[in-house]
């Protein structure tokens, strides 16, 4: 019942995104390229947070890893194939996340958050201080790369971003989302959600709690590094700001804004924040203040984020309550429990 309209909505959204470079000025397509980078990173971030119950405050380090990886592979080594850069970034994510994750997934809640924050800060210091390797605060240049072996020599940077690279990123996001959809709906995904809800009970059902948390951590790191490589290519720069803790906070913000309890929430959050930030920056220099206020309001009034709001509006529109006749509540419903703030629902 719910599935059909969701699929139509998703197809419509993909078509609309596909039409942006055709119908809107290049500015908007160019603006949306980082959105794709963030969307991919957040798909991974939410496997860890929304499905695994682990909130990382240092996840930006993996975006930085992807961007610096792109700078090293394409800039220093001169391998200017973006596909190789993506594979390299993913491998870097894997190699870094394995030992780091092995350590940090032993902790949960605030301890996990603080540990990831600490490692993020550590990464920032390394990038900032090792000037001769990383360029310090001026960062490393990420050169223009070939896409699928094509040079696109006739395009300037803006045209490349608003044209071929835009579609490349859209396709990449769709592939990443499809794979993540399969992961969260697999037996592995079920075990991950069970340990999020009750780790002790999960243990006694044979759920390998540490191993599964580590797997989720590594997958989220790979997604983060791929998103970071896109960001690096877009700005042409990998700089320490990418891994600074405020950038990790930015990822959390987008996820909460969109709604971490739904699959598409983080993508919606990334899109909303990208557009919102652009608008606010053109109106006021106090845009951070406004963003902070919005985050507070979302947490208080929309704990399931924009995706939750959309689901509520959708179910209200299709609810039998709007038709005459007695209200039919599910047999075991209790008013407080079924309140809009607490009901969980995977959109789509």
């Amino acid at each position, binding site marked *: 019942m719910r599935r059909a309209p969701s699929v139509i909505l998703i197809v419509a959204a993909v078509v609309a995104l596909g039409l942006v470079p055709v119908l809107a000025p290049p500015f908007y397509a160019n603006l949306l390229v980082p959105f794709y980078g963030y969307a991919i990173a957040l798909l991974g971030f939410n496997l860890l947070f929304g499905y695994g119950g682990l909130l990382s405050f240092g996840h930006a380090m993996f975006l930085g890893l992807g961007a610096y990886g792109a700078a090293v592979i394409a800039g220093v080594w001169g391998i200017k194939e973006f596909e190789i850069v993506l594979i390299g970034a993913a491998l870097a994510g894997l190699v870094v996340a394995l030992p780091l994750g092995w350590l940090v997934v032993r902790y949960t809640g605030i301890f996990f958050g603080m540990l990831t924050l600490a490692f993020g800060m550590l990464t920032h210091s390394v990038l900032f201080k090792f000037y001769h390797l990383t360029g310090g605060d001026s960062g490393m240049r990420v050169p223009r790369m070939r896409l699928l072996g094509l040079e696109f020599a006739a395009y300037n940077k803006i045209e490349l971003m608003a044209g071929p690279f835009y579609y490349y990123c859209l396709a990449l996001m769709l592939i990443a989302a499809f794979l993540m959809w399969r992961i969260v709906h*697999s*037996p592995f995904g*079920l*075990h991950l959600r069970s340990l999020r809800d*009750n780790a002790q*009970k999960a243990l*006694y059902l044979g759920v390998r*709690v540490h191993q*599964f948390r580590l797997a989720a951590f590594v997958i989220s790191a790979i997604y983060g590094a791929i998103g970071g490589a896109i960001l690096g290519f877009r700005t042409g720069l990998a700089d320490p700001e990418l891994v600074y803790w405020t950038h990790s906070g930015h990822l959390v913000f987008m996820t909460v804004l969109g709604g971490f309890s739904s699959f598409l929430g983080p993508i919606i959050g990334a899109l909303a924040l990208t557009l919102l930030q652009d608008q606010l920056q053109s109106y006021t220099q106090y845009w951070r203040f406004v963003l902070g206020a919005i985050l507070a309001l979302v947490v208080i009034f929309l704990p399931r984020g924009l995706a939750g709001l959309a689901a509520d509006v959708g179910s209200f529109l299709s609810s039998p309550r709007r038709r005459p006749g007695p209200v039919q509540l599910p047999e075991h419903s209790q008013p407080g429990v079924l309140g809009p703030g607490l009901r969980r629902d995977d959109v789509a």
Partner: protein
Amino acid sequence: MTPLIETRGVSKHYGAFRALDDISIAVRAGEFVSIVGPNGAGKTTLVNLLTGLLVPTNGEVYFKGENIAGVGPVALATRGMARTFQLVQIFPQLTVAETIGAAVVTHQGKQWRLLSPLLADEAISARVAEIAGIFGLEQRLATLSRLLSQGEKKLLDVASAFALQPQVILLDEPTSGVSTAEKHTVMKTLVGAARAAGVDAIILVEHDMDLVASYSHRIIALSEGKVLADLPPDAFFADPAIIETVVGKRRGH
């Protein structure tokens, strides 16, 4: 016949405090064994040792002839031991089908299938439906666990343990929080389900002597960390000294 579960001279000390002292017990296939004792007698510690959660200070714990001291719950779940908890344990945001499914995934060894769709796996859904049927939860498969009634949550907790298809199941006060009127119904469901699921042995940790008397083949009484008695129900209840120690002021409730 080799016992399914056996402890040999097991002790568990916390500093100077001896939670368990030189415990040797055995549970064989086909047995329903109850572990009773007043609060602080060491029942919980023994359960945690039997389920591989704690490592004994001295002695060994064997499950199917293997030393399982400290191997942990995951290893035991895959080897055929399941337990339930005194306080009902559920996955609030998972449906009934998903909760049972988590155990079925473990039992069928499919936990590392990262990209195969769960819903399309007919072996998993068939087993989930079968287990739900045994516990009368088949109408609740799509319901979120936290929306179930307290009794249903208890049944789901136990159902998910049964879904591991264990040889031994350890029930830690399965009727706590259940009304006096319902406790026999719950126990009958559990014992019937155990037979239907092919469980070889049941270990029951219980305060309620009425339940213990009705279902056990053998009763092990603990007192101050030691085995006070290990007797069939007739002999157990024939000894006023044991009853006095174990039941104490509870008699007449």
